[in-house]
């Protein structure tokens, strides 16, 4: 039985940020749709995979002894 989690940040100016964690599931989609109907226009939507994509770190090590 999976747990669905939605995290909201309601800014002081009333802007709402919604983050659906993990696999969204039908319930989360219904909640999102209901909110968007009641609240207003969606300004931005992005997938969290992209939103939280860490910059890739490239490292390279040189052998201590170059011959």
């Amino acid at each position, binding site marked *: *039985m*999976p*747990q*669905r*989690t*939605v*995290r*909201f*940040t*309601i*800014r*002081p*100016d*009333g*802007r*709402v*940020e*919604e*983050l*659906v*964690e*993990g*696999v*969204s*599931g*039908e*319930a989360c989609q*219904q*909640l*999102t749709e*209901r*909110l*968007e109907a*009641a*609240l*207003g*226009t*969606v*300004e*931005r*939507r*992005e*997938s*969290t*995979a992209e*939103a939280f994509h860490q910059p890739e770190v490239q490292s390279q090590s040189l052998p201590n002894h170059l011959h």
Partner: protein
Amino acid sequence: MSHFSTVKTELRQLDPLVQALNDLGYSPDQGERPVRGYRGQTVTADLAVSMDNGGDFGFRWNEKTGAYELVTDLDLWKQAIPIERFLSKLTQRYALNTVLKASVTEGFQVAEQQVKQDGSIELVVTRWDV
């Protein structure tokens, strides 16, 4: 796939608007109401908060935008905070009430609610799916 959305809140529904006004300590009158301004001139609103010495404010439904708009005589604004801040506070309250109500309707439970240092309200809701 999980997703992240940002919604610009508009005052689209009457009930959460009335509730938000109540939360801020106002008792609005519903139905077509006059909002008094300078020298007793009035405009009609769908929701009005009358102040003792005039300088009422109200909300009027705008068909075009599909949202309620604040109507008031700015020269007679008598609230403790400037009108922009008042509208922000009201909109945040409206958004919170709407999010809470929609979450409960969809079977979610509030797991966490806190006010952050910058004045944002953080709310976490969860639901177990069968």
